[in-house]
């Protein structure tokens, strides 16, 4: 049942007047059967376009796409057995919620009572059991999005392509839905591409994450890998929040580089494939949750803002070097809290920091 999905050197160029937009630029990747790969990347980086090419809505300007070993570049959409959740929902405005969800099932030729059962199940799954007679224009934004999701999930396609399917749902529902999606996807062993802007979602749901930037692939890897071993400053900066502190390589030994930062020399893990030479500039990536107020020595700075963020305090700190860094301090009662203007000293655990080529 589960299929491989392969993109080889896929590009898409939009031509507009004299302006050429290279929306997707030489993307290659293989999605193994039953895998869930999430696309992450800044707005406009080409995620939707890539997904649309896989679906067959858009013809690649170059490259090939194969599903299950078969070149589908010229196979019509409806023969690809894919499910697509559109960023703008694309619900059929003239059909009730029930009919929208039943659409694909009818195409597949299920019997009427089966359809009714499956649609019910699908709608219950997204919490819209009672809205089946309504029309899309009588639904709230989130409700519409859920219908779009249900419409595809009931079909259990071979390949599932989802373009920000949960963006308009509240946190609770989103968490619920993502576990449901993941459960179904795993259970049916569906190969899945998923676009999201929610990093929590990407990190929790995906087998692998593909980070894109300006149409190009920046890094593909397991969530933890992307997070802790970003292959570029872009990735480091984009995933999670990162303090990028410039320094100079003092010495390199095995996987560890000693980097001098603000007068201190710290041994930091060097990123894979990096070739550091002593004296070369390096950027040390320190996650805000690893940059904590320290009673002892550390980098000195002044608190710019202190924000309460539910489970934690968030400090924006201006270092003496002038650089602004973020520090997330778990909020526990009794813990000292800093306020704006106070002096603070920050330190980090070098073992979970990583040095990149600057």
């Amino acid at each position, binding site marked *: 049942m589960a299929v491989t999905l392969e993109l080889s050197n896929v590009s898409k160029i939009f031509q507009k007047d004299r302006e050429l937009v290279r929306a997707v630029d030489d993307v290659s990747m293989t999605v193994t059967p039953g895998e869930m790969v999430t696309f992450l990347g800044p707005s406009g980086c080409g995620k939707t376009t890539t997904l649309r090419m896989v679906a*067959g*809505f858009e*013809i690649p300007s170059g490259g090939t796409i194969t599903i299950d070993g078969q070149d589908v570049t010229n196979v019509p959409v409806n023969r690809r057995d894919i499910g697509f959740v559109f960023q703008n929902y694309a619900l059929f405005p*003239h059909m009730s919620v029930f009919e929208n969800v039943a*659409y694909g099932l009818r*195409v597949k030729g299920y019997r009427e009572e089966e359809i009714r059962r499956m649609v019910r199940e699908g709608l219950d799954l997204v919490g819209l059991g009672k809205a089946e007679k309504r029309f899309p224009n009588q639904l709230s934004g989130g409700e519409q999005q859920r219908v779009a999701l249900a419409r595809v999930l009931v079909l259990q396609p071979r390949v599932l392509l989802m373009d920000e399917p949960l963006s308009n749902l509240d946190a609770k529902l989103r968490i619920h839905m993502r576990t449901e999606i993941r459960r179904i996807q795993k259970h049916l062993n569906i190969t899945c591409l998923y676009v999201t802007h929610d990093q929590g979602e990407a990190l929790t749901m995906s087998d692998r994450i593909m980070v894109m930037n300006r149409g190009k692939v920046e890094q593909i890897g397991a969530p933890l890998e992307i997070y802790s071993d970003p292959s570029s400053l872009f990735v480091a900066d984009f995933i999670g929040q990162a303090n990028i502190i410039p320094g100079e390589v003092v010495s390199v030994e095995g996987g560890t580089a000693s980097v001098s930062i603000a007068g201190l020399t710290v041994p930091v893990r060097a990123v894979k494939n990096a070739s550091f030479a002593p004296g070369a500039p390096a950027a040390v990536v320190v996650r805000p949750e690893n940059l904590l107020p320290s009673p002892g020595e550390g980098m000195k700075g002044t608190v710019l803002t202190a924000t309460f963020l539910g489970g934690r305090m968030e400090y924006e700190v201006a270092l003496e070097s002038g650089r602004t860094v973020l520090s997330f301090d778990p909020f526990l009662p009794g813990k000292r809290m800093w306020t704006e203007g106070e002096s603070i000293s920050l330190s980090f655990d070098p073992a979970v920091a990583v040095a990149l080529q600057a």
Partner: protein
Amino acid sequence: MNRPSALSAPEKVSPLKRDPALLPALAAIWISLAVFVLYPLFRLFLTTFMVEGQLSFSNLGAVLDSWYDRQAFLNSLWLATAVSVAGTVLGYIYAFAVTRISIPSWLKWFLGAVTTLPLISPPFTSSIALTLSLGPNGILLKFFGIENFNFYGFWGTWMSETLTYFPVSFLTLAAVLSAIDPNLEDAGLSLGASPGRVFRTVTFPLSTPGIANSVLLLFASSLADFATPLVLAGHSFPVLPTQAYLQITGLYDLRGGAALSFLLLLPAMGVYVLQRFWVGKKSYVTISGKTGSRSGFKSKGKLAEGLVLGVCFTVTAFILYLYSLILWGALVKVWGVDNSLTWENFHYVFTHGRKAITDTLSIAAVATPLGGLMAVVVGYIAQRKRFFGNRAMEFFSMLNYALPGTVVGIAYVIAFNERPILLTGTMTILVAAYMFRYHAAGIRAVIASLHQIDPSIEEASASLGAGAARTFFRVTVPLVVPAVLMGMRYLFIHCMTAISATIFLVSVRWSLLTTRILECMTELQFAQACAFSVVLILLVFGATAVLTGLTRFATRRISGEGGRG
């Protein structure tokens, strides 16, 4: 909600209170409808049914007693149904080819241009070309060796009317089809439906507003058309508007003719109601403020595409053939007798027809923008604003369209030939007659298009501080510009070619091109008539180009290449 509702059903606040700009627009529309539609018809109604100061329907009774007239009534219904169905189908096929099949853009333009030709057929000229081809001993019949083809009667009339009216349907539907968010069809395909099924379940239902309005328009057109049956229906296929015309002009029985015409309002009203019912309250919104990207064209299947293009090319070739006959007729000395080429006929047009040409152009130039404006305003109010009298307004705006032109013309003469509204002999009466008769196409097209536009786009404009008028002109109008353009083009063409209503309104001061053409026909000057038609076609093409350019300019980049095709 399980709790008994403390508040009653949603409270109605008068839209006028919230939308003060509506009031002057509404007042203007109602006044003009009252003056130019209701009042003349009312006067005609009185003339028809007041016998010695008493309301009497004896006129109608007499007419209904005749088997021939009853037959005519049924034939009219049958013909109108057949024409509206066939014309809409053909129009849909064209619209589909232009909006959904990837063909070069010059070819799209060409298909579009050719379809304007039948619209520009002044009464009788295209019928003559048809007759020459398919009538007894017709050129095409001989060519294909067909015998015993009964052209006169239903078939000829049906064919001619379908050819004449399908462009209206094409234009309405092309506007509607091109405004369907491609993502919706994509969604259908991605759910596994074949292109055919997507067409059946998504594209087609979403074009319902267009189809319904096209059917309504074509039905009314055919119902009111007396000129085509006059030439082609023959005695075996009487239809009501022709009967009415004959009653008036042949039997000198104005009352009987008018009575017959009023009868036509019943089916027109019926179809109007059916149409509303059909479009219903469903949503056809496909232009939301969140657009999906337009996708590359996907094949609809070779067979279907071949079929669609096949039909288009055949019909296009046929139309071109018909009009090349007319061109030929305009260029030769005497058709079939002296085939030497000559400019004489054109010379005749520009000498004898000069005043008619300039008069007609001026009238068209005045009526077209006014009619276009009226069409968007009426269409907009009818589709977007909900209040008492809406439906009535929408229906009244179609009345003049659904009645045979002769009757409308007579009503105008009766109403406007004396105080308080003395208009006969003026340009105003001609402009009004054309406008209130032929703005219907624009109104219907605008209504069809508005069905597709998410009201939130207009709300956005209001929230950015724009008043109702600005929102209307800057946002609504540009979004329905294809429909408005179509309406204006239709109006312009009819100002140039339509004759039935205005034959009673032309005066010494204002003469019309079509009157001249008709004269040529009745005086058997076939070549000159052809030359007039050719000139007319060129004028219309020129004017359409100007019109399109002007509208583009006025609304800046309407639906620019970047926007909807």
